[in-house]
C-alpha cells in the first residue's frame, strides 16, 4: 500500500456533476472552514513559540503574539542571552549541547548506515543456511522495544565505564596503560549513547535496504565477478554507488531521528555539558519554568527549524516509509 500506487484515483468528480453550484459553494465553504480550524490548531503552538522567542521580556506570560519592542535588536534578546551570555552559558552550555547532538547524530548515522548496508547486501546477494531465520529474527527482536531494557542498558554502560579502574586492579601488569578510554563509552558519555543507538541499528532498516539492493540487477554483479572482482570490490565500487541516493535519504531520516531522540539520552547522559540538545532543552525549563521560557523558545526555534525543513523537503519519501510501518519515535 503506497500513496503512488493507484493511477486511476477517485476525486469526487462524479458527485460534482449531480450537485448544484450553490450546494457546491456551501460544501467548499464548509471544507475550507474545517481546514482553517485545523491549520489554526496545527500552527498555534508554532506561532506561540515564535512570539515567545522574540519577546524580550523572556517569561511565559506572553500576552501579545506580536512582540512589543522599541528596536530591532531587542527582538533577539533571548537569542543573545542563550548563545552568548556567559552567565547563562555557565548554567546551560547551549553550544555544547548542539555540538554533542551533532557528534552523536553524525557518528550514529554514518556507522548505522554502513552496518545495515553491509548486512543488507549480504542478505540480498548470498543464499546461505539460516538466512531466513536471521532476517525474521532481525525483525522480531524489534518487538521488544529497547525502552523496556533501560535498566540493563544503564548497567552495561556503567560496567564499561568501571573498566577504567577495574583493569589496573584485575591485571596489575597492565596498570601502566591509561584505560581512561573506557570512560568515553561508559555512563554519561557520548560514546556510550552512540553504542546503544548502534545496537538497535539493525532492524527495519536492514529490510528497507535489502529491498533497495534487490532492485539492483544481479547481472551487474555477475559481469564484475567474471572480470575477477571480489565481492567486496563489487559491493564497494559498483553496488554502493548505485544505491547511494536512497542511502542518503535513509541517512537523513536516521540523522533526524537520532537528533530528536530523548528518552535514552536522558537516562544515559547525566552531566549538563554532556547533554544533547533535546535533553538540554528539557532540563532547561524543568529548572525554572517561567523564568527561562524565552530562552527555551529561542533554543527550540534554533533546533527545530532545520528539522522541520528537512521533513517538509522529504515529505514524499517519509510518506513512503510510513506506509511500510515505520512510526516516528
Amino acid at each position, binding site marked *: *500500500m503506497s*500513496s503512488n*500506487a*493507484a493511477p*486511476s*484515483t*477517485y*476525486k469526487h*468528480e462524479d458527485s460534482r456533476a449531480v450537485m448544484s453550484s450553490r450546494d457546491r459553494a456551501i460544501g*467548499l465553504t464548509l471544507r475550507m472552514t*474545517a481546514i482553517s480550524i485545523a*491549520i489554526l490548531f496545527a500552527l498555534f*503552538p508554532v506561532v506561540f513559540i515564535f512570539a*515567545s522567542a522574540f519577546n524580550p521580556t523572556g517569561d*511565559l506570560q*506572553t500576552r501579545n503574539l506580536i512582540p512589543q519592542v522599541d528596536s530591532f535588536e531587542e527582538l533577539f534578546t533571548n537569542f543573545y542571552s542563550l548563545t552568548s551570555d556567559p552567565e547563562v552559558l555557565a548554567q546551560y552550555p547551549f553550544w555544547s549541547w548542539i555540538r554533542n547532538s551533532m557528534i552523536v547524530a553524525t557518528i550514529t548515522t554514518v556507522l548505522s548506515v554502513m*552496518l545495515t548496508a*553491509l548486512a543488507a*547486501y549480504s542478505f540480498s546477494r*548470498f*543464499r546461505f543456511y539460516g538466512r*531466513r531465520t536471521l*532476517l*525474521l529474527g532481525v525483525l522480531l527482536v524489534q518487538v*521488544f522495544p*529497547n525502552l*523496556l*531494557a*533501560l*535498566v*540493563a542498558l544503564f548497567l*552495561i554502560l556503567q*560496567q564499561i565505564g568501571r573498566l577504567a579502574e*577495574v583493569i589496573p586492579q584485575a*591485571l596489575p601488569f597492565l596498570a601502566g596503560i591509561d584505560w581512561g578510554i573506557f570512560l568515553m563509552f561508559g555512563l554519561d558519555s557520548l560514546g556510550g549513547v552512540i553504542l*546503544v543507538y*548502534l*545496537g*538497535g541499528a*539493525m532492524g527495519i532498516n536492514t529490510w528497507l535496504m535489502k529491498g533497495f539492493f534487490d532492485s539492483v540487477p544481479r547481472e551487474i554483479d555477475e559481469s564484475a565477478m567474471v572480470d575477477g572482482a*571480489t565481492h567486496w570490490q563489487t559491493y564497494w565500487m559498483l553496488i554502493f554507488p548505485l544505491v547511494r541516493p536512497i542511502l542518503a535519504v535513509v541517512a537523513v531520516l536516521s540523522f533526524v531521528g537520532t*537528533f*530528536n531522540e*530523548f*528518552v535514552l539520552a536522558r537516562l544515559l547522559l547525566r552531566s549538563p555539558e554532556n547533554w544533547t540538545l*533535546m535533553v538540554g*532543552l*528539557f532540563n532547561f525549563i524543568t529548572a525554572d*519554568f*517561567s523564568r527561562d521560557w524565552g530562552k*527555551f523558545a529561542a533554543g527550540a526555534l534554533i*533546533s*527545530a527549524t532545520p528539522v*522541520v525543513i528537512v*521533513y517538509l523537503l522529504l515529505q514524499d519519501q*517519509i*510518506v513512503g516509509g*510510513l506506509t511500510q510501518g515505520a*512510526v*516516528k519515535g
Partner: protein
Amino acid sequence: MATAAKSTPNLQQGDRQNAESLPTRLLKYFGLMILNAFALLLVYSFFYDGNPGLSLVVGLITLFVNVVIFVPSLSPIRWMAPGLALAILLVIYPITFTVQTAFTNYSNVDHPYPKEQAAQQIARVGGFYVGENNPIYNWENENTFVNAEGVYALWITREVEGVTEGLFVAVGQAAVSVENPTEVPAEFQGFRRMERREVGRALRDLQSASFGAGEETYSILRGGQVAVAVPRYVFNAENGTLLDQSTGNLYVGDDSVGFFVREGGNAENPNDILRPGYRVFVGLYNFTRLLNEPALSGPLVNIFIWTVVFAFASVFTTFALGLLMALILNDSIIPGRKIIRSLLLIPYAIPGVISILIWRGMMNLNLGIINDFIGVEIPWLNDPFWSKVAIIVVNLWLGYPYMMLICSGALQAIPSEVYEAAAVDGANPWQRFWNITLPLLLVAVGPLLIGSFTFNFNNYLLITALTGGNPPISGSPIAGAGQTDILISYVYKAAFSNQADYGYASAITIVIFLIVASVTLLQYRFTRTLEQVSENV
C-alpha cells in the same frame, strides 16, 4: 527478485573464488589476534568485577566473530558480523538480563551485589574492632607527619596510670616509642609535621591507611583514636557467614530473603540483619507482589487502566481527525492542497520533546496562554481529570498528521469503479463513506492503527515531558507514581527513583512486553506479514 537469485547459484561460493593473497591473510589474522586479546581482557575484567553475565556475553560474541571468520561457508555472515555483535550485546543481552532480573530481588539499595561481594562490602564499611588487650591511643590532627616521599606518619599518645606514653608510627615502618610524648617536634626521623590545612586535605587518605608494619598495624578509628584494629565483621567464605567480632554474633546468609541474618534472629527484624543484602532468585515473588500487595496493586490497576484508555483514545482521536482531513484534502476542488498538506504536517516535523514542552507552557495554569485566551482557569496539568484531557489533546496534535498521511495514501488506492457502482445504485455520500470508504480503508490502515496502539502504549516521552506522571497518587510506595503515569513511565520511576527496585521494574517490563507482543502478533496475523516475509526473502 527471488527467482533471479535462484538462477545464479555460483554466487554462493563467496570468497572461495577469490583466494586471498598471503599478506592480506596475515594482516587479517594479526587484526583478529589483537581483537581477541582485547576481548579476553574485557572478559576477564568483567568477571573480576563481579559481572559474569556480561563477561559471558562478550566471550560468546568473540567466539561468534572467530567462527565466522574461520569457517569459509559462513562468509556471508561476515558482512553482518559487526551489526549482529552490537545487537547481541545491546539488544539480546539486555532482554535476557531483564527477564532474569524479574525473578530476583535485585535493587540498588537493599540488594545491590552478589552474596560474596555484599559480605565484603559489609566488612569494608563495618568499621574496626579493637581487641580487649590492645591499647587505644589518642591522635590530634596537628600531630601528623609526612616525609619527602609522601609517606604519612602519626604521633600518638596514651595515658597509663598517670604517665603519658607516646608512639611514632609511619606507614610501612615499625612503631617507635618516643621519649617526650607531650613535646611534638617539627621534624622527626626525616618526617616533617604537616600544616593543619594539609592534614584536612589528606584526611581521607589517612583514614584508609594502615600505619606500622607486620602484625602491629594501627588504624584511625572514629573520634581521633588510633589502635591496632581488625575489621569488625569477618567473612567466612567456606560457610558463607559473617562474624561480628565486637559482639560475637554470627550472621548467616538467608538465601530466601537475601540478607545476612543474626543466628537465632528474625529476618523481619531490621536489627537482626546486616545491610546491604545480596541478590537472590525469588521466583515469582515480584509478580505475585504486583497482584497481592495492596499498596502496589492499587496504583498499578489505575495505571494499567489509564494506559489502555490513553492508547485507545489516542488512536481513535488521531485517526478520526486524520481521516477527516484526508477526506477533505482528497477532493481536487480544494485550492492549494499541497501547501495545506505541508502546513498540517508541521506538528509531525517538530521534534517531539520540543512540541510537548511548548504545550506544557501553553497549558500552565496561571501563566499559560490557553487559559488566558479562553478566559478560564482550567488546571490542565494539575488536576487528575484535566491532565488526562490535556494528554489526549496534545497527543491528538502530535499524531493526526501521521494518520492524515497514511489515510490519504490509502484513499487514493481505493478504485473509483467501486464508487461509480455505488452511485449507480443510488447510495448517498454518507452511505458511501460508511459502507465503502471506511471498510476498505480499515483493511489498508488497520495494521498501522495497531502499530499506533502499541507505540502509544509505550509513549514514555509524551507523559514524561508533559505531566511527568503528575498529579501524584497519594500513598504509593513507588516514589512519585502519578495519576497520569502509564506503565512504562511507572517502570522508569520504580527503577530509577530512590528505591531503584530493578527486580520489580523488570517484572512490570515483562508484563508490558507480553501485552505488546500479543498485540503485535495480532497485527502480524492480521497482515500476514510473516507469511509475506517468508515468501519474499
